[in-house]
């Protein structure tokens, strides 16, 4: 088990450095230092104040940001700063350290994502089990047909439909802002439903496959009832493949939160990133990209851990079958 974990963590570290390096290099590829660019674009309010910024100030700023050192030195300072949460200030809000911006908005984005994962997992498992237990009946075909419809519909389209139905026609749920629990309903459902679509089908197939396995015959031969079969045996075995399918969806889910926050006017990390992108606030773009990357990697690590705990073969030997 530890072997398995160690390998996953090692990969995580490598991936994180790769992403940060590429992001950093991309940002650096823009000609000129970010100071000059942002002076030209008038984004730095302190630069706007002093149009003829003194050479002295320029030099000290340059030194502060290590702009004269080779790129890999700059990269190193940047990443170590990121990891120790000294990320400097953003451009847009030069008086506010990036860190506090993220502190304010990350919990909102994360709670959206977390709720969406929880809701979608529960719904998908339930739907999958119901469809599997009623295999080949109208219950099965209709739920799976509806699920299929949703597989390529992105969360923002689902959001639009939900807004239309619940916000406008039925007028029972709010569609803007995040001022209370009911404000979470539509955003979370928009994020959750597309995932339920694709994964419930998988859960159904997984349960059916488990139910048709030979070891289920043994359970019946021992005098087990349908209850024993489903909850004592089939469930755990169906959940394992289900988890492997949910894992990769998490990255897409985090990306979905960016769009959902924009649509619903939610002040989360996504809106910070979008704003930064629109305003060419490079430090903030980089910081939030790295943070998203870190979150996604950690989420995947958690799923791997969960899988490792549930699969006895990994628990005992460190290798999956």
């Amino acid at each position, binding site marked *: 088990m530890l072997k398995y974990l160690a390998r996953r963590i090692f*990969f995580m570290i*490598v*991936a*994180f450095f*790769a*992403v940060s390096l*590429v*992001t950093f290099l*991309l*940002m650096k*590829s*823009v000609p000129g230092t970010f100071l000059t660019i942002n002076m030209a674009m008038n984004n730095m309010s302190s630069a706007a104040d002093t149009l003829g910024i003194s050479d002295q100030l320029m030099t000290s700023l340059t030194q502060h940001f290590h702009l004269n050192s080779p790129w890999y030195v700059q990269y190193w300072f940047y990443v170590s700063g990121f990891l120790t949460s000294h990320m400097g200030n953003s451009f847009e809000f030069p008086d506010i350290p990036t860190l506090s911006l993220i502190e304010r908005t990350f919990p909102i984005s994360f709670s959206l994502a977390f709720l969406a994962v929880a809701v979608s997992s529960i719904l998908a498992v339930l739907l999958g089990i119901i469809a599997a237990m009623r295999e080949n009946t109208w219950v099965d075909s209709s739920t799976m047909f509806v699920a*299929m*419809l949703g*597989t*390529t*519909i*992105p969360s*923002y*389209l689902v959001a*639009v*439909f939900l*807004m*239309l139905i619940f*916000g*406008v026609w039925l007028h029972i749920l709010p*569609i803007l802002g995040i001022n209370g629990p009911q404000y979470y309903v539509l955003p979370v459902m928009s994020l959750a439903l597309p995932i339920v679509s*694709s994964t419930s*089908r*998988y859960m159904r*197939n997984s349960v059916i496959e488990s139910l048709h396995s030979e070891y289920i015959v043994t359970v019946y031969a021992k005098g087990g009832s349908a209850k024993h079969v489903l909850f004592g045996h089939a469930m755990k075995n169906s959940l394992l493949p289900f988890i492997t*399918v949910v894992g990769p969806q998490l*990255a*897409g889910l*985090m*990306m979905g939160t*960016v*769009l959902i926050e*924009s*649509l619903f006017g939610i002040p989360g990390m996504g809106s910070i*990133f*979008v704003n930064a*992108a*629109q305003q*060419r606030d490079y430090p903030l*773009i980089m910081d*939030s*990209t790295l943070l*998203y*990357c870190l979150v*996604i*990697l950690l989420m995947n690590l958690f799923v791997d851990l969960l899988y490792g705990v549930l699969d006895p073969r990994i628990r005992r030997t460190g290798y999956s079958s």
Partner: protein
Amino acid sequence: MIVKVVINLEIRFNEPALTVKEHASRRRRSPLWQRFRRNKLAVLGATIVLILVLLAIFAPILSPYPYQEANFGATYQDPSFAHWFGTDSLGRDMLTRILWGMRNAFTVGFGAEVVELTLGLLLGAVAGYMGGLTDNVLMRFVDIVYAFPSLLFSIILIVLLGHSILTILIAVAATSWVGMARVVRSQVIKIRQTGYIEAARGMGASTWTIIRRQVLPNSMGPIVVAVSFGIPANMTIEAGLSVLGLGIQPPTPDLGELIIEGQQAVFSYPYLLIGPTVIFALALIGFVFLGDGFRDIFNTKSKR
């Protein structure tokens, strides 16, 4: 004399490929095309996609009004005979704007898919065929690309490269191509495990010939499925970028832009939102039916 021998050998090389495909369809006793026709949903999906694509291609000819023409005397009109989908805040015809929006969506959808297919085929076939260290290295590379937050990365590329259709196409393809590489690779590996690749090598066929004539034709099934699900995925990224205001810039209409405008006026003029959303959803569902139909007829185990 030598030429004749070579031609004969080549013809025999083709047979294993045919045999494998034939087996797959002989199992169901009908060629793939017939099986596709029998799947009504798939045919429906194909029809929807075809109609919408044609509409998008001929949008410049078909649209009743120029897309940027504002008509301040006819703002916020409900859907009517003159304006099938109504008009927006500037009096622009919604049908026109939707058609042009679909045009962008399909351009990026199909275009990015071509790029993804090329890159994916190259990397996937090489990784799968070579195996060993090459495979390992390439797959680690793929894993790392997977670790990039895809949407954010596309946005960064657009910030750096600009907002033209081409750069958006590249930005979309840049993060999505790895999925195709994985599909290709797993198919190649499956085929490698059959015997006739070794037989072909034994007869002296070069690696490239084998990949081109044996491996790729037999991998078609899952690749076709991946493509039919990849195109709507690209389209949703493209529209999503415009939802954030980071995609194609006005005055060229884009579905994402239409969605945002519709959402802003949703309480007073819901038709502004319903039109583009329904058409977009229709296109996506068409691809789902199509992709699912392909999945059935190629009898592939789905990654559901």
